[in-house]
Each structure stands twice: as C-alpha cells, then as structure tokens.
C-alpha cells in the first residue's frame, strides 16, 4: 500500500531546504512565507507547520541579535552545563528558548556543539565558542555587552 502512493520528489523534497533558506533570511519562519512554501511544495499549510515545528532548527518568532547556544551534550552535562544554563538565564532574565524583550539575546540549547574537550561550553552567534566555563566566567561574558546594550538604549 505504501509503495503505491505516487510521490513527486521534485517538489516536496524541497520543503525543508526552503524553510532553511527562509530562516537564513529572516532569522525565523514568518507565516506568509510558510504559506508560500506550501503552495510551492504542493502540500497544505498545516503540513508545512507540522514539519517545521517538528525540527528543532526552526523558529516562529524573530530571533535576537545575539544567539546564545548552550551545549547540552553529555560531556558538558557531567561537567556542569545545567549550572551554566541557569546562570545565563539569570544573567539575561529569560528562559531557554526565549528572546530578551530588547531583541538583544536569544537563548537556546543545542544537542552538542562537538567540543567535548572544552566542556562545558557555549557558542555565541554560531562562531564564538566559550569553553571550560564556570558560573563566574559566564557572568563575565555577559556582563560587558549587556552594559553596552543598556547604555545604548
């Protein structure tokens, strides 16, 4: 029965790559863009949302200017990642998955950055890795830019 279904690889297979491109451009998936993807891929909007919301990569709200990703890999966990997350949450006054009201920071966790030797570690804006962290070091990382942001506002 499953073999009989007529599937068209050309259109539907582009769904996730298209969503990735959109997120690349907007930082999240705006609703109108998802509707467009549905039309282009020949699926319904609910399917697009169903797929998008299934994958950790996609977001539905605008993202902060600085994206903080806390590694939740095993090595990081046993070296104290939960404390690191808590400290950042306290420093930024947001919870995991949220964005600060001034759109300065978005705090996320990530399955594994892959720097297990540097555990526990975080990555900011997909490039700056801070490793072998302690709560104290975290406070220092967020102290400076936060103050700048406050000054600016």
């Amino acid at each position, binding site marked *: 029965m499953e073999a*009989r*279904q007529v599937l068209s690889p050309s259109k539907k297979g582009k769904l996730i790559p298209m969503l990735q491109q959109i997120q690349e451009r907007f930082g999240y998936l705006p609703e109108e863009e998802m509707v467009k993807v549905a039309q282009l891929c*020949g699926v319904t909007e609910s399917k697009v949302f169903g797929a998008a919301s299934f994958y950790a990569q996609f977001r539905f709200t605008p993202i902060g200017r600085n994206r903080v990703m806390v590694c939740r890999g095993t090595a990081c966990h046993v070296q104290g990642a939960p404390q690191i997350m808590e400290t950042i949450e306290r420093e930024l006054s947001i919870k995991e998955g949220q964005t600060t009201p001034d759109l300065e920071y978005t705090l996320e966790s990530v399955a594994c950055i892959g720097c297990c030797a540097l555990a526990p570690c975080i990555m900011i804006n997909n490039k700056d890795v801070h490793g072998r962290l302690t709560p104290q070091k975290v406070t220092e990382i967020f102290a400076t830019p936060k103050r700048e942001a406050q000054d600016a506002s």
Partner: protein
Amino acid sequence: MTNPVSDVSGAGAILVTGSNPTENHPVIGYRIREAVRTGARLIVADPRRIPLVDVADVHLQFKPGTDIALFNGLAHVIIKEELEDKEYVENRTQGFKYLKQIVAKYTPEYVSAITGVPAKDIVTAARLFAQADSGAIVYCMGVTQHTCGTENVVALTNLSLLTGNLGKPHAGMNPLRGQNNVQGACDMGCLPNVFSGYQPVHSDRDTGTYWRRLTKERQLEQVGVGFIRPASPGETITSIEFNQPVPVDSVSDTIRAKFSRAWGVELSDVPGRTIAEMFHYFPHRRSRIMYIMGENPVLTSPQAELVREALEDMDFVVVQDIFLNETAQYADVVLPAASFAEKEGTFINTERRVQRIHRAIKPRGNSRPDWEILQELARRFGLNWNYSSPEDIWNEVRELTPHYFLGMTYERLEKEGGLQWPCPAIDHAGTPILHKGKFARGIGQFSTVEYRPQAADTSGGVTEEYPFILTTARKLYQYHTRTMTGKTDGLNYLLDEERMQINPRDVQALKLTPEDMVRVTSRRGSLETKIEITDCVPPGIVCMSFHFAEPRVNVITDPAVCNMSVASGVKVSAVRIEKI
C-alpha cells in the same frame, strides 16, 4: 453521469472542467482527491484556481468562453500523437475523419493564443488524459451555462470518445447536477417537450423553442437586444453535426396517445414555453399565469430584474414553497409545502440513482406535501386523481415509463440502496454505466464544433468600456439562494455576505482597498458589492456567487441562451468595475 460516483475513485485520469466539486459537490470532491491520492492524474481546466488545483497535475487556466478551443486543442494533440483508442474509434464511433479535419488547425500554439494556456500544458494534459487506463470527465455548469454550452459539451464528448472512455468503468462523461432532484425533475417530464423518461410530446425534439416555432420569421428583429440570440444561418447550429433530429411525429403521437389514455385527458401538441420564455422580454409573449413550485427565479434567473417585472405584470402567480422566498413576494397565493423530511418519495441523484426518502417528522403547521396539494388542485379542476400515497404515483410513473423505471419498485429501492436507470424489468439490476458495449443510438458520433470568439457587442464581449469578465460560481457554505442554508446560523457565520473575487493585480490597478465597495456594471445592469482579494481568479476576471439577495449578481448576467439546450450563458459577462 454515465458512470457512478464511486467510479471516480479508481480512475486513471480525471479531467475536471467548469466544475468546482469540493465546494459544490463536496462528497464527489472527496472522491476526486481520493483518486489522486491513489495515483490518478488530475487535470483541472478552469479559469479560476479552484481548490482542486492544489492537488492537480495540470491546471489549464483558460479564458472564460474559450472552452471549445481548449478541448479541440486537446483532441488535436491526442490525434497528432496517435494516443487515441484506435480500436474503439474504429469499432464504436463514426465521424473521426471530420473531427481530425476540424481539429487540425487547433495546434497547441494556436490554442494557447486563444485560451492563454501555455502550449506545453495543453500537450501534457492531453497525454496524461489519453495515456491513462481510464479517463473520467467531470463537468458542471461552467461548461453548460454558456451561449455555446451544448457545443462545449460536444467538444468534451469528443475527447471521451477519442480515448475510448465512454462505456467503461472509472471513465465516462460525468455532469454533476446541482440540486438534489434536478435529475428527477427532468426524468419526470418537467420540461416543455417531453413526458417522463424523455418521451417526446411533439415532433420537434431538437432545439425548437416555443417562441421560435411559432414566430420563426420574427426572430431577427431581436438581434442586438440579445434576449434570445437567433440561430442565424451558418452561425451555430448548422455547423454542428450533432444528433440531427429524427422525425418522431409518429412516435410522439403514439406517446401522447398513451398518456392521454392513461390520464384520461386530451393532451396538447403545442410546444411549451421554457423558463426563459415564460418571463419573456416582451410582455405580450409572456405567460399570464404562473404556478411556481419550489423555485426562486427572482434570484436565480439571469437578468433577474426582468423576471421581477414579468411576475409583477402577470395576472396571477401561485407560489408553493416551504419559505416565503423572494419570488413569493410577487405571488397572489402562497401555498405552504412540506419539506423533504416530512414526506415519502424518491429523488434521483446525479448518477441516475433513484433513492427513497422517508417521513421523519410531521409537516409543520398546516403545510402539506406537494403531491397532496397538487392532487387537491387537480380534483378541483375535475380531474379524477386518486393517489393514496407517493408509492401509487411512483407505480404510475413506472408503468408509463417502463424503459426507465419499470423494475424499480419501492421495495427494491429500499432494499438495494437505490437503483440506477435504466432499469426496465423487475429482475434488471439497473445500469451503473451507460453505453457499455453499445451506444443507445448504436454508434458513437463524433461531432465537430468550432471555436467562435465572443463578438464585441455581445454580453461576453470584452471592450474598453467593459474590460472585465464576470463569471459566477457557488460557494461551500451556502446553497443556491440560501432559502435552506440561510436558516442555519453556523453556515451564515461561516459565509454571511457576498464578496466579489478579484485578483490582487486588478485591485492594485483599480487602486482598491480590501474594505472598498465597487460598482459592477454590465450591458444589462449594475450592482454594488464588497470585494475579496484572491488569486483564485486571474487578472481580468472577477467572480461572484448568486447566493445572496443583495447584491444580486443575476441583475447583471447575460440571459442570452444556448441555442440548443436553452441554458443561460451566465458564466461570461463583460463588466466594468468602479470604486465607490
């Protein structure tokens, strides 16, 4: 429908044209989507982006009124690529060589120029349809409600014949009837020229209309007024080689005699008026007394203003209905009828299936089932009617229409979940698929039709003054004139007002905002409406439904009729749109 509804599910390819099943025949819409899911190829030929387009392989978005060119174009590709069912064409049809000649010039490029459909889509669609194991054609008013409606059907039938799709499962020509018993009304003889089972009343069973037969020479004076367009020589009918009328004088005489004997009355052979003729443009050609049972022509007829005038002008109007509808306002007497849930009887659905309905509750107040009212009246006219139940009436229908219904007793209908006509004997299983093995007339006739552009001065002709084409449609959440759906709060909640569909590009060009009202003016009349901005309609085309009393789209539609079927060409009207 030549084939049953359930047949759609297994079709190899489906061509849907001039029909929006998911809104107007939703359950058939489910079947089509189901077919697509299990591998059917779907071709949608429609000026609008109807919901089915979402699952279609090809959407042939042609300009309204260019149906014939498109269908001939498909035939052209099929013949050119030798995709026709050669054995079928050879053994079961005639006239192939004429068709071949006629469609020769309808190359994809030529058709593309007329219809606006990309040439490659025409080729793809033709291949998809012709190469499938079975191809079903599903159509509706979008094909027939044109001044060339019959010719559209002819061109479509050619496709079905070419590909050998008439008379086999999962295929066929499948017009979808809009109302629960429109098929039954026709089958029962509620047409001027036939008794039940299409038994002719008089010899001219062709396109002859009351008016034309009586005053043939005076037709020409009507040219330009456009109420009924005449068949001027060489324009339409004469170029069609379709069902040439057979001389049936002796046949109709015999039939009239049969009914006359059975009913115990003398029967006239004067052709009757069609609906359009009853409300004729000229008062002296109208009927003087109207008996209207369960209809609302004030809303449904094209150029509705004329109908209203005609009704006001008449000597006496009787309306028999379950609600005091818009037409009833013009009645002198209103008779309260029982609804479908309050009586026994049968309906015939679009696939020719006769099915029983049952009385679930008693009639409201003093209302009565229509058949009882009719019997009461008949008796007052001195007719000797003695029906004790709808079953009595049905048995009379069976006896007088044996070739269609003889085998269909109430008992069988009940037990077998309905039967599809013809069912001429008590041991006959009914006929799910027409034309199986053999056509009713013996051999399938290819008929040739040519595309004719809309003249600029006709209602559909687009000019600078009337740059838009207005087409009409129905919507999911309402039904006809809302006499029934308008009584369900939830349906009104989901769709509570008319909004004319218009493409965003036109909106931009006309500098409209979503809240704007517009005035829509045709050569017939004018109305004001809100708009719905949507790319369901292409630029240059606007669409309205006729569900609402206000704005009433039929005040501006074209009442010009098809010369053969006398269906109105409400699908194409040239209009102009102004912001208010």
